[in-house]
């Protein structure tokens, strides 16, 4: 009897997963193995053309570029999110600070992108300020390049990194830092060798939460990117809406899904071992630290 109720509880979740995840995914898989229709759509005929077409140097180039930009953007996001998460966790008015992180989230995604265009544009705020300070006469071209895309992506996904980092740092026992200092570690060493290993799970979650959506970015490279900022998300959209090659759009989507899920699985499988290591807290370091004390 109890078991049946359990099933009933998870039913909405199962239905949700099936209707909004499994079923669309199956459609994408099926489309990726069909022949393309001349005017969009697919012909009911098996074909692996969509996968062989992916070996095209243009698509490989964009895949490499997307990977590179996603790694840089994710690394920067975490680098910024780490001190933010730490200061929120140690702050007395956590609620207000968390609120401030979340508030911009309530503004529409596109509006926030356009806000960056208003800031960085040739006639934007930043150029106005530079001109007013006589640092430049001509406008500086901030927008429409890869740097602009990375900057806006970092801004967009920063809360996704701050929140998981905050929640793990919040659970961290800060007296461990004092202990490390007592044992002779410098402030920097105590962060690096005591704090970081203990919040590894937060770092991993933050990394995944930012890397996965950034890897599939579409609107940001479209709006603030230039001639050199075409990413995989844009190729997928173009195949679907412009060149009318639905199977190719599906096969690229599949590849992105498999790559990102593979990454998540790989990290999830490794995680338990990492956590064990965390509580060992680097014995070699403890020894040298106590030796120094002596």
């Amino acid at each position, binding site marked *: 009897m109890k078991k049946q109720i359990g099933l009933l509880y998870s039913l909405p979740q199962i239905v949700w997963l099936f209707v909004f995840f499994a079923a669309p995914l199956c459609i994408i898989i099926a489309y990726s193995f069909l022949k393309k229709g*001349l*005017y*969009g*759509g697919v012909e009911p005929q098996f074909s692996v053309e969509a996968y062989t077409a992916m070996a*095209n140097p*243009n*698509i490989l*180039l*964009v895949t490499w570029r997307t990977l590179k930009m996603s790694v840089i953007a994710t690394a920067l996001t975490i680098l910024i999110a780490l001190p933010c998460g730490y200061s929120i966790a140690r702050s007395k008015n956590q609620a207000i600070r968390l609120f401030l992180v979340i508030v911009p989230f309530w503004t529409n995604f596109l509006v926030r992108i356009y806000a960056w*265009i208003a800031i960085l*544009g*040739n*006639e934007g705020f930043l150029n106005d300020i530079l001109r007013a300070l006589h640092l430049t006469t001509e406008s500086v*071209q901030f*927008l*429409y390049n890869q740097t602009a895309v990375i900057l806006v992506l970092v801004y967009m996904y920063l809360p996704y990194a701050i929140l998981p980092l905050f929640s793990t740092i919040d659970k961290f026992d800060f007296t461990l830092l004092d202990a490390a200092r007592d044992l002779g570690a410098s402030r920097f060493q105590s962060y690096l060798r005591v704090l970081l290993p203990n919040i590894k799970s937060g770092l991993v979650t933050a990394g995944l939460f930012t890397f996965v959506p950034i890897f599939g970015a579409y609107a940001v490279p*479209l*709006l603030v*990117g*230039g*001639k*050199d900022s*075409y990413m995989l998300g844009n*190729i997928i959209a*173009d195949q*679907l*809406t*412009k*060149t*009318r*090659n639905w199977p190719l759009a599906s096969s690229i989507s599949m590849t992105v899904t498999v790559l990102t899920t593979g990454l998540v699985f790989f990290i999830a499988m490794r995680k338990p071992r990492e956590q064990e290591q965390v509580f060992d807290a680097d014995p070699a370091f403890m020894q040298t630290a106590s030796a120094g004390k002596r």
Partner: protein
Amino acid sequence: MGKLRKVLLNLSGLALICVLLVLSGCGGGGQSKTLYIFNWTYYTPDSVIQKFEKEYGVKVVYDTFASNEEMFAKLKAGGANYDITFPSGDYVSIMIKEGMLEKIDKSKLKNFGNIDSKVLEQCDFDPGNQYSIPYYLGAAGVAVNKTKVQNYDHSWSIFARKDLANHMIMLDDMREVMGDALKYLGYSVNTTDQKQIDEARDLINNVWKPNLLKFDAEAFAKSFAAGEVWVAQGYAESIFAEVDKSNWGTVDFFIPKEGGPSYLDSMVILKGSKNKDLALKFIDFIHRPEIYAEFCDYFGFPSTANVPARALKKGESWYRPEDLVNCELKKDVGADLEKYNAAWQTIRVGK
């Protein structure tokens, strides 16, 4: 106690039924009908829509798209229940082939005779206008900010000017930009010759693209209006909708002398439309001379399709019907589109 609960339950049940009745009344459209229009951004003025609503006592739902491809992909994917849409010629023929359109009973269109016969002659994508009624014939051109750029030719060669590098923008539209390059090289915008397509690709990739800020079909007019770019290839109506009226004097809009791809957008009724009669009334309404003139004046269009409207137009036009003389209508190139796709991908992916 039990009795009270029963009464309450009955009452709430009754309320639910009432709500459902009201909702279905709105959706089903007993007295007031709703016409669903799927149209380009900046293409039918609100004032025209409001007049139509008032005169026929109906409601119009007006959704927009930014390109033929987007419109087609959305309709093809299904789920939409639009009555009228506005495809360009190449897409009219595709949609006829795909069986997506309803035949139009021209005998019910009193104003069909107002349409320029020269425009009707160009409708070889739908001979005899069985499925489509011309809406507007036009072409994308080039807008120049005269305060920043002087001394230029009315030619596509402006995009080869290195001194304007990073201050120019072209549409993120394969057929448009490829068509410009093909026309500049003296070829047809509908060529299927691989050598000509390659030549056009190299011209764009090696000569034009290095000077462009980006390819953009969504925000090009905003960028131009904001002074972000000085030279923009695009549609006049988008440019002038974004540029402040007081600055219109600083904008020069021209159709390059070599010509380019022109478009003939038509009104079509989609298969499965629930309001075919109302859709026909809307099409007829658009070709009333005073309404067509109002539409043209709103966007600064020349009255290309409707003859009597030319005399009724009050405002100026950004270009004249004669400027389109070297332009060529885009046609559906069928499976050869793949050649364009490959060329365009090389251009867009970039280094």
